């Protein structure tokens, strides 16, 4: 790192310095003028560069659909066919799911359908609350016990118990499977270079492709139902776990690896006795991630048959029953909070063992387990005579559904005009003009411009990537829809940044305020993305404006977080030096803090874009016309090719934005001497 004084004594080395200003903008100016000129006057010369000709379209969707059909009907691996494999995977997921589902929600049934007879009832609600409270106490003391039992009570009181237990069952299956799968992939990647090389582009893609897109093939391969939903959840939650595993195994100190070799570990012992246990603290963070991601998938997965709370929310959203949707949504939030805190406490507890008790008896080692089993046993027996132990009595349930519906109705009656006016003003003055503007851009020009930006920021490889991917979007006939995606995402990101960055600047220098804001954005991020959609729909009904509000609400958190982190990372000695030189607060902010925090803020922007894109696809439910809608339609028609192609287009947009911004941030960082 360069010495701090170096920055201050040579202001000319900054990103907006004269020496760079003279060269870079000239090239950019020329290119931009050429682009604008072509855009304004090129249509008559080369119409094909504006509207991608139909005849040139690559029928990728059809190819993919055909390939899927072939997979299902004809593909074999010699000993077994592809269909055998999917059936096998289904069975692996199905068995534990049935078990969890029976235990928590439906009871054990004999026979099927409506003629089924219950041979064993599910666990009494009181037993579940008791067990969860004991778990909280074991992991995090009385406070955690109180918090998690309150969350579960909330679910019971508001009449969401049975749905919530169905959801919990699917998470209890998906999360452990996701952790194990991610761990195994990560371990394999660390062990075999080749495997990692094959895996890492796949991981990149998985992180940017919208969930909807792979719902379609999952639906196609595994059919409609909870099993398919769990599999989709696994596909969604495993890549981050894999990544965390790779990173944390790589971070094991080389001395510890030397130790493993010196005591004569075999490769297997090295992995399971040295690497994995040493990295367990970070691996536990991965576990928490998997649980939260699984919860985030709850609603989306209900589109392919997950049932439970997700289904309730989705159904309510479809019939615009805000009250019911909100209650089910809040139950998801309660579940999310409880599971988040429990898994964090578990991570903390497992990572820092307090005392070694391997030599005590079983009972002494597992007091909580025994207590939980006792609670469940007693409650189950009591439930035979006392029905309220078994099922939370209906008479004591509260429902605020009607109340919320009334509130929304009241707001709409009294403020309809105001809300409508605000909405229309934004639509007419900002959204629609911007949308029109993007729609008229020539695809060829945009591809060229992106290629040029890639070249300037990261050289030939980046240029090929950005131009290539954007060309592919055009070539598969999705340019128009992609532009709508870019428009909605762009506007939302701009607004989210305009809100988030100033909040970040204000909070960064105030510790107390930041700790409050941090709790708020942490909590906001544990909420499933659908939750953001509901209030927006309640107030503004469907359409682009509603989508934008939801996206902004969802994507503002990273903008705040990265701004604060960036500013707080600025070396305090530099700020002191600035003060000593007589900078005003404003100068300190603009000349020192923001300038040095710039790369970090760019990364925040990057995250904001990723968040916005992931939300954007979900807003297809409220009737946007972009790529997300395309995926959604494909989902309802089980059209694998169409869904995947549109999903990949969203992923391409994300990858282009990500690579350009990262390259830009890297250059600025290098120029500031931060590396």
């Amino acid at each position, binding site marked *: 790192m360069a010495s701090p004084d170096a920055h201050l004594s040579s202001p000319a080395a900054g990103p907006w310095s004269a020496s760079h200003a003279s060269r870079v903008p000239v090239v950019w100016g020329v290119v931009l003028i050429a682009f604008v000129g072509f855009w304004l006057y090129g249509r008559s010369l080369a119409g094909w560069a504006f509207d991608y000709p139909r005849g040139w379209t690559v029928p990728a969707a059809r190819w993919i659909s055909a390939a899927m059909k072939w997979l299902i009907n004809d593909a074999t691996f010699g000993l077994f066919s592809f269909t055998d494999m999917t059936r096998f995977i289904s069975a692996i997921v199905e068995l534990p799911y049935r078990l969890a589902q029976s235990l928590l929600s439906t009871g054990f049934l004999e026979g099927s359908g409506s003629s089924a007879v219950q041979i064993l009832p599910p666990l009494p609600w009181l037993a579940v609350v008791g067990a969860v409270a004991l778990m909280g106490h074991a992991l995090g003391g009385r406070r955690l016990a109180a918090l998690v039992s309150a969350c579960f009570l909330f679910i019971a009181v508001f009449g969401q118990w049975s749905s919530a237990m169905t959801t919990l069952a699917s998470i209890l299956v998906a999360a452990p499977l996701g952790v194990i799968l991610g761990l195994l992939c990560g371990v394999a990647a660390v062990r075999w270079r080749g495997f990692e090389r094959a895996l890492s582009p796949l991981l990149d893609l998985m992180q940017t492709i919208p969930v909807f897109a792979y719902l379609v093939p999952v639906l196609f391969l595994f059919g409609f139902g909870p099993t398919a939903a769990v599999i989709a959840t696994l596909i969604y939650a495993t890549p981050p776990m894999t990544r965390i595993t790779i990173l944390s195994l790589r971070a094991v*100190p080389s*001395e*510890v690896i*030397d*130790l493993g*070799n*010196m*005591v*004569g*570990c*075999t490769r297997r*012992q090295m992995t399971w*006795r*040295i690497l994995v*246990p*040493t990295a*367990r603290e970070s691996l536990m963070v991965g576990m928490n991630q998997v649980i939260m991601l699984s919860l985030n998938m709850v609603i989306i997965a209900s589109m392919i048959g997950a049932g439970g709370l997700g289904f309730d929310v989705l159904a309510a959203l479809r019939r615009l029953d805000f009250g019911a949707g909100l209650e089910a949504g809040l139950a998801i939030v309660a579940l999310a909070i409880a599971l988040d805190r429990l898994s964090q406490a578990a991570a903390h507890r497992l990572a*820092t*063992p*307090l*005392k*070694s008790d*391997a030599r005590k008896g079983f009972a002494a080692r597992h007091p909580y387990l025994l207590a939980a089993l006792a609670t469940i046993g007693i409650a189950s027996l009591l439930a035979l005579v006392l029905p309220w132990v078994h099922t939370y009595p209906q008479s004591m349930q509260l429902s605020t559904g009607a109340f919320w519906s009334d509130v929304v109705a009241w707001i709409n009656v009294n403020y309809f005009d105001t809300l409508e006016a605000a909405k229309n003003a934004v639509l007419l003055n900002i959204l629609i003009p911007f949308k029109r503007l993007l729609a008229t851009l020539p695809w060829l020009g945009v591809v060229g411009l992106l290629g040029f930006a890639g070249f300037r920021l990261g050289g030939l490889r980046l240029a090929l990537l950005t131009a290539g991917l954007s060309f592919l979007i055009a070539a598969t006939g999705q340019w128009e829809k992609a532009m709508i995606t870019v428009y909605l995402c762009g506007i939302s990101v701009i607004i989210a940044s305009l809100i988030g960055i100033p909040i970040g600047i204000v909070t960064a220098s105030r510790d107390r305020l930041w700790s409050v804001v941090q709790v708020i954005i942490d909590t906001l991020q544990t909420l499933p993305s659908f939750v953001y959609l509901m209030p927006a729909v309640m107030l503004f009904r469907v359409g682009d404006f509603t989508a934008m509000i939801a996206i902004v609400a969802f994507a503002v958190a990273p903008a705040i977080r990265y701004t604060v982190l960036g500013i707080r990372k600025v070396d305090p000695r530099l700020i002191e030096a600035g003060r000593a030189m007589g900078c005003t607060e404003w100068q300190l902010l603009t000349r020192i803090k923001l300038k040095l925090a710039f790369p970090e803020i760019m990364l925040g922007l990057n995250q904001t874009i990723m968040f916005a894109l992931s939300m954007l696809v979900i807003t297809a439910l409220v009737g946007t016309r972009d790529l997300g809608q395309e995926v959604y339609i494909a989902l309802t028609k089980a059209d694998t090719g169409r869904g995947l192609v549109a999903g990949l287009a969203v992923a391409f947009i994300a990858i282009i934005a990500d690579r350009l911004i990262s390259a830009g941030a890297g250059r600025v960082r290098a120029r500031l001497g931060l590396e």
Partner: protein
Amino acid sequence: MSFPDPKLVCRNVWKLFGADARSWLEAGGTAADGEGMAAAGLVGAVRDVNLEVREGEIFVIMGLSGSGKSTLVRCLSRLIEPTSGEILFKGENLLAASSQRMIEIRRHLMGMVFQHFALLPHLSVLDNVAFPLDIQGMGRAGREARAREVIDLVGLAGREDAFPRQLSGGQQQRVGIARSLAVEPEIWFLDEPFSALDPLIRREMQDEFMRLQSVLRKTIVFITHDFDEAIRLADRIAIMKDGVIVQAGTPEEIVLKPATDYVSEFTRNVTRAKVVRAESLMTAGGSEDAGPKVDARATIAEAAPLFLDGASQLGVTGADGAVIGTLHRDAVVSLMLKG
């Protein structure tokens, strides 16, 4: 001196970091050719090292940071594959051993102590110490009994159930030492074991180490960057600089006859009396009634107090207790006055 055969021999060992290191060597690269090496983009962490470690001695490799000590000691145990050379452990060429054979050798014949302790955070002290035995597949009762023995030996009895992060640095390194001793290794590598400790604890650990060695009589390769530590502990020292061993010999030889200016930089401030042994200052021959007796291996600083009750000379005794020479008061005084 009466040391038996070398336990560990290291011949022309090279470790070059960088691409195509081997072909540069085969094309005739030499240790002296530092510039050619740099031009080829190679880092010469260990260059053409030859050394012999004898049964039962403490062999100290001393050098400043980046001189290649860690790389060398990891070559000796083949944690790092040397670029070329030969390493003979009890006559067996380690570099030719299969990975299966290496696992065998490391499990039963080698022990290592690490600068930053390398304790496993999820295991208690007892389990950490028993870990190497567990890896070998020894049953719980057997390995825990053995682990308790070595924990006693390093003075940690009573802390068996603690976890590493609950221990001080010195205690953690005691665990590291106990663990490396649990398998009763024939050769014991210590890579800067006390460097991460503060000076007082370091001193205490050095004494503890010497006490252990007086009981165990292991063959030891000890790495340090601290010349005083080297002098205190070593039977023989090799001084390393930029991957090359610039001088090897007993502490006495090094202090009295530094081979290069670089070595004399270190030795300048060393008190001679603490290094020079009676046998090198004595005059040969002498009789049983020459005065108080002193062991030939004792340093002058240790022998000096014996002159306090007026003796003008001491009888120097060899390993068998027979007098082999005479140490004169004048010789001792003039050495001590020189500093």
